[in-house]
Structure formats: structure tokens, C-alpha cells
């Protein structure tokens, strides 16, 4: 991209500057540290110049928004067309209370819903299961059956909102319930918009809400791909998530690498199941983290977009642009929030919001300041949403597309993250793919090593966390926190018992036994799961039947 002669001049001048000016100045004013590095501990040079990006080819490496390789963004006009979707993950206690919170958020100008489920729901246990004790309604809403789902979306027209559901192992069951609720509202499934997370591989890697072994989980996922491509065509069938990988302690490059490696595994599974890549690939979406190192994060998103486009085109021979576009949701990093001086978290979230927006995200959840302490209060959630609105309407960064492109540093970082991620993906390919690399613990081990290294850096003050290992104060201020009423569990169990008493149990048993029968065949299970939930079979019952046939996953831990 650069004129060869001019680049030679720059090199000579740079050398001169370094040797004659910098070295002299360093004698008098030494730098703060021996080694400077990004948030992911990649070494950072003093100055970036055209020398660092001398091989950059604008057309090939960056191109134009909405065009291959999509480094600069997936839409032609980006935020000049419309802002990202501001989507706050919320849900707690009972369906009634969550329903109220959703209505509040929609009133406040939020543009999409994001449902958080409690852990028993995420792991396919009913609220009255022994393992659910103490967990009901804690980290999200408890959904035992279609009854709860009807309450959750009561008064919310499902043809008007887009709904994102953080649900993985039992994703097909919750999606079925959503379709059933819509049907009761008179909304046909082809009108439904939204996303299910449905990313089991990162559950094995980092998040832990798995149920079935990989092979059977992949089958359920490809069943959803196939079913939705026909019946729910506007639905994003998977959100391939690096968020939790990063939260578990990975570096930025590892986040990209392991997420895209998971993505490759899903695409391969779908192709193996006989689906056409351009049929399902446009419905794949991604979910990334936003950490504090603003420029590294921006480079990360750009590198991920470019790498995924190449993978889809070169490895899977996708033809449609939409199949090559990496669209992603972002959530600010929960792990960077501190319990100490929690108001500082508002500032962290602001930086992270800027990173996501400058990186071209399609939707964003901003964390609330008190999330290192408990579930957020309504006030905190409002500030978090306002943070997005200030960036959108006041900061000016949305007025042009990909404004950091061409920065020597950002382009250089984009390249190095892509290279590092690619090297990991090759390594994972050699191990037999993401599923194998998870089963033998390789991916988990790499993440743990990064997490441990970071922790040691914080403890040795090589990394500073404001308010935690520096600038500490005696904290006296009482923070107002949200408490989930412990009676929720009792209440939820009562509701469940009533459901079991009132429903047509013969019908339930019949749909469940059909589901069990079909689980042993190769058939797509979605229609049978839909029948079961419509008969008011509970989530635990549906998953129980599948557990019987599929067995359960046992984690690999290498410490």
C-alpha cells in the first residue's frame, strides 16, 4: 500500500529517531516500565508507523463495509443507518417479575429483549428437582413449563420484539416453548425474530451448563438449524460465544481462536447432517466480550470478522456474502467489574462500550456497576443503558464507519490477533477439531494458564486494577442491592405441583414416549419436542427423556 521508496525513508527516519532522540531522552527520563503490554499481555511497541503494516493491502485486507473480508463492518452504512440493538440481559425470580422488568426496559427505550434463565432451567431440571435447591430464580427466571413461558411474555407482542435467550443445552425446548407462546398469541413462527445461544461447546469449555455428551448435543443443534431454516427463517439459531471463554480468563486472541474453532465445528456438523452451507450460515451469529483494553478489543473484533470471512469462503466454500459475515452481540466484561468502589465500574463499562461500538457490534449489553456484588438493581440497569445511549448520541464515534481503521497500531494489532488465532485453529485442527480439543482438555488448559498468569500479575502489581490493588479506600457506604425473595423457590414449586395435577397426564406421557422413541432414531427432534411442550410436559421431563437416551456429559479437568 505504501510507496517503496517512501517507506525506505520512513525506516531511515525512524531508526534515526530511535537511536538519536529516544535513547538520549531515556537516559534522563526512563519509561514507567521495562515492558509495555496489552490487556492480554501482548508486548506493545513504543510507536507504530507504516513499517508495522508495510504488507497491508487495502483492498485485500480491509476493503469496504458490507464487503468481503468485512474487516470494516458487515453493513454498508453501519450506525449511520441505525444504531446497534441495545439489549440488556435480564430476568430473575418468577416469570411474573421478569415480565414486569421487560415491560419496564421496553418503556425505557430498550429495543430488544434478552432473557436470563436460572441455573436449573439452563441445566434442564425442574424447580422441584433435588439439585435445584437454593438455585431457583437466582441468576435468572425459572421456567418449568409452557405455563411459565406464557406468563413471561404476557402482553409482549412477539411479532414486534426480537428476543435473545441465553439457553444452551435445552435450547430446543425453550425455543419450542417460545414458538408455542407465539402461536397462542396468533403469531406464526416465520414472524419470530431473535436468537438462542445454543452454543454447547463453550459450555464444556467455560460456562458449565451442559447436559448431554458432545455427539448428541451436536445433533440437537443441527436439528434446530434444519428446523428453523424452514419454519423460523428469521431466527438466529446459534450465538457462538467467546464471551464466557474470555470471562474464564482467556486472552483476546484465544477468545477469537476458540470461538471460531467452535464455529467451525458447528458448520462441519451441519454440513455432515446434510445441510447446505448457504442455507444455515447466514443465521449463525457470534457473541464476544468487551474488555478494558480499548484498542486491543477493537482490533479483536476486526480480526474476528476478517478471519471468519476467510474461513467461510476458503474452507467451506460459502457463496453468499451473508454466510461470510460475522455478526456479533457484545457484552461488557463481567470479570473486570470490581466489588471495591463499585461506581468505578460505570467508567469501565463506558470504555468497554466504546470498544464494542468502535469494533462494529450489532448489539450490546452493558453490565451494571453492582454486578460483582449481586444482581443489578433497576437504578444500576438504567445507568448501564444510559451509557450506551450517551455513546450512541453524544460521543460522535457513530458518525463514520470503523473510524480507527488505518491506525498503524490498530491495523498491526488486528493482524497479530488474526495470526495468533489462526495458529490456534491449526493446532486444534491437528488435535481433531474443537470437540476433541475440549474432550482432551487442551482448550480449557490454555485458558486456565492465561487466567492464572493474569491473577499472578495482579498480585505482583504488574497489572493494576484501580480500587483493588491500588487506590484503595476504606469503604463504608452501604450499597443497595437487589435480593431475590427466598420464597420464590417455594412459590415456583407450588405452581409446578399445580401444573402436574391439572394437566392431561396421559397426553404428556404419550408425547414424552414418542419423543423418547424418536430420540433413538436419526429423525429431527424439534417437532416432537414442540408436541411435548404443548402438552405441558415440563422442561425437566423433556430433558429427562433425552438424558435417558443420550446419557450425560462428564467434564474434563486438567489443572
Amino acid at each position, binding site marked *: 500500500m505504501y510507496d517503496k521508496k517512501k517507506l525506505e525513508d520512513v525506516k531511515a527516519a525512524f531508526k534515526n529517531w530511535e537511536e538519536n532522540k529516544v535513547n538520549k531522552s531515556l537516559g534522563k527520563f526512563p519509561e514507567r516500565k521495562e515492558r509495555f503490554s496489552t490487556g492480554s499481555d501482548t508486548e506493545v511497541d513504543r510507536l507504530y508507523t507504516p513499517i508495522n503494516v508495510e504488507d497491508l493491502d487495502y483492498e485485500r485486507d480491509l476493503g469496504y463495509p458490507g464487503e468481503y473480508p468485512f474487516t470494516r463492518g458487515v453493513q454498508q452504512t453501519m450506525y449511520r443507518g441505525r444504531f446497534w440493538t441495545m439489549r440488556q440481559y435480564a430476568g430473575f425470580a418468577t416469570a411474573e417479575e421478569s415480565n414486569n422488568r421487560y415491560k419496564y426496559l421496553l418503556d425505557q427505550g430498550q429495543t430488544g429483549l434478552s432473557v436470563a434463565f436460572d441455573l436449573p432451567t439452563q441445566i434442564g431440571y425442574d424447580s422441584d428437582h*433435588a439439585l435445584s435447591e437454593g*438455585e431457583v430464580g437466582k*441468576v435468572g427466571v425459572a421456567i418449568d413449563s409452557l405455563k411459565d413461558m406464557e406468563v413471561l411474555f404476557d402482553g409482549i407482542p412477539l411479532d414486534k420484539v426480537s428476543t435473545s435467550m441465553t439457553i444452551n443445552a435445552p435450547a430446543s425446548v425453550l425455543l419450542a416453548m417460545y414458538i408455542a407462546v407465539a402461536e397462542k398469541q396468533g403469531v406464526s413462527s416465520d414472524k419470530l425474530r431473535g436468537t438462542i445461544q445454543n452454543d454447547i461447546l463453550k459450555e464444556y469449555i467455560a460456562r*458449565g451448563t451442559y447436559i448431554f455428551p458432545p455427539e448428541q448435543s451436536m445433533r440437537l443443534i443441527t436439528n434446530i438449524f434444519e428446523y428453523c431454516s424452514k419454519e423460523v427463517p428469521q431466527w438466529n439459531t446459534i450465538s457462538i460465544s467467546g464471551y464466557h471463554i474470555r470471562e*474464564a480468563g482467556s486472552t483476546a486472541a484465544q477468545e477469537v481462536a476458540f470461538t471460531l474453532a467452535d464455529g467451525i465445528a458447528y458448520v462441519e456438523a451441519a454440513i455432515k447432517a446434510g445441510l447446505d452451507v448457504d442455507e444455515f450460515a447466514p443465521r449463525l451469529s457470534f457473541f464476544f466480550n468487551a474488555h478494558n483494553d480499548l484498542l486491543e478489543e477493537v482490533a479483536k473484533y476486526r480480526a474476528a470478522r476478517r478471519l471468519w470471512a476467510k474461513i467461510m469462503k476458503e474452507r467451506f466454500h460459502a457463496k453468499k456474502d451473508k454466510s461470510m459475515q460475522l455478526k456479533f452481540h457484545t457484552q461488557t466484561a463481567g*470479570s473486570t467489574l470490581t466489588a471495591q468502589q463499585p461506581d468505578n465500574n460505570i467508567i469501565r463499562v463506558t470504555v468497554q462500550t466504546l470498544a464494542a461500538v468502535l469494533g462494529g457490534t450489532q448489539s450490546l449489553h452493558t453490565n451494571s456497576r453492582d454486578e460483582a456484588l449481586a444482581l443489578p438493581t433497576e437504578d444500576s440497569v438504567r445507568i448501564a443503558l444510559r451509557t450506551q445511549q450517551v455513546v450512541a448520541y453524544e460521543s460522535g464515534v457513530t458518525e463514520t464507519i470503523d473510524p480507527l481503521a488505518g491506525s498503524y497500531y490498530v491495523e498491526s494489532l488486528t493482524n497479530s490477533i488474526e495470526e495468533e488465532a489462526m495458529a490456534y485453529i491449526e493446532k486444534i485442527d491437528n488435535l481433531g477439531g474443537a470437540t476433541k480439543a475440549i474432550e482432551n482438555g487442551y482448550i480449557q488448559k490454555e485458558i*486456565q494458564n492465561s487466567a492464572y498468569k493474569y*491473577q499472578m500479575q495482579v498480585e505482583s502489581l504488574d497489572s493494576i486494577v484501580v480500587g483493588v490493588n491500588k487506590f484503595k479506600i476504606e469503604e463504608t457506604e452501604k*450499597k443497595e442491592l437487589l435480593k431475590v425473595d427466598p420464597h420464590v423457590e417455594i412459590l415456583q414449586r407450588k405452581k409446578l405441583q399445580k401444573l402436574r395435577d391439572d394437566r392431561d397426564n396421559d397426553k404428556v406421557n404419550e408425547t414424552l414416549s414418542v419423543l423418547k422413541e424418536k430420540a433413538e432414531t436419526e429423525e429431527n427432534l424439534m417437532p416432537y419436542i414442540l408436541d411435548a411442550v404443548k402438552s405441558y410436559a415440563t422442561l425437566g421431563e423433556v430433558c429427562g427423556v433425552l438424558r435417558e437416551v443420550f446419557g450425560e456429559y462428564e467434564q474434563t479437568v486438567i489443572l
Partner: protein
Amino acid sequence: MNRPIRVLVAKPGLDGHDRGAKVIARALRDAGMEVIYTGLRQTPEQIVAAAVQEDVDVVAMSLLSGAHNHLFPKVVNLLKGEGVDDVLVLGGGVIPDDDIPFLLESGVEAIFTPGTPTKDVIDFINTNIKRK
């Protein structure tokens, strides 16, 4: 003390966030302790059974789901029920300040919230260990 301290690091409940538990397990190992790691989704009963069979000095639990008020005291009580009175029970994770007095009263010896250096946990164990 002339023997390695034995610590059970456990994840009670359904919460799958084990970054903290794994970091602490490694830090305790590097401090010369024998760490028995039980993995995810342990019931209080399983934790106590493991603590008994492994004859540990410390039971360290990590939980981020908010079920601590239920699960931590249950482990303490089950240990008492087994007649175990020389084990240090520790809790860590996202635990609101308001809950800490209740947990301490119910017999959890210390609560470590996010941001605690691993060294503090190691020091606490070394100082407060009940068996010599």
C-alpha cells in the same frame, strides 16, 4: 507443620463458573498444599462425603449463582452431623456484604469476595488451620 495441608476445593450447586475455583486450586498447590478438586455440580452431601474420606483440613467452596445462603450452611451442618469439628470451612464468590454476617454466624469461617489476592486465602488457611 510437617505435612501438607489438605484442601477440598468444591463447586456446590449448579453454577459452572470455575475460573476462581481453578485459580485458587493452583495457587494452593503452589503454596505446597494438597488440593482435592471435585469438579462442578456437587451437592452438599457429596462435598461432605468427600471431605470425610479425604480427611481434609479445609473445605473451600466457590459459588457465583447466589445460592450461598442455602448451600454453604448446609455443608457446615452436614459436617457437624458427621462429627467433624476440625475442618475449616471457607466460601468464595459473588457474595453480597449483607449476607456475610449470616454466613459467618452459621459456621463458615471466612468469606472471600472477588478481588481477594490468593495470598490472603493462603495466609488465612495457614493461620487458622485447626489441626496441627
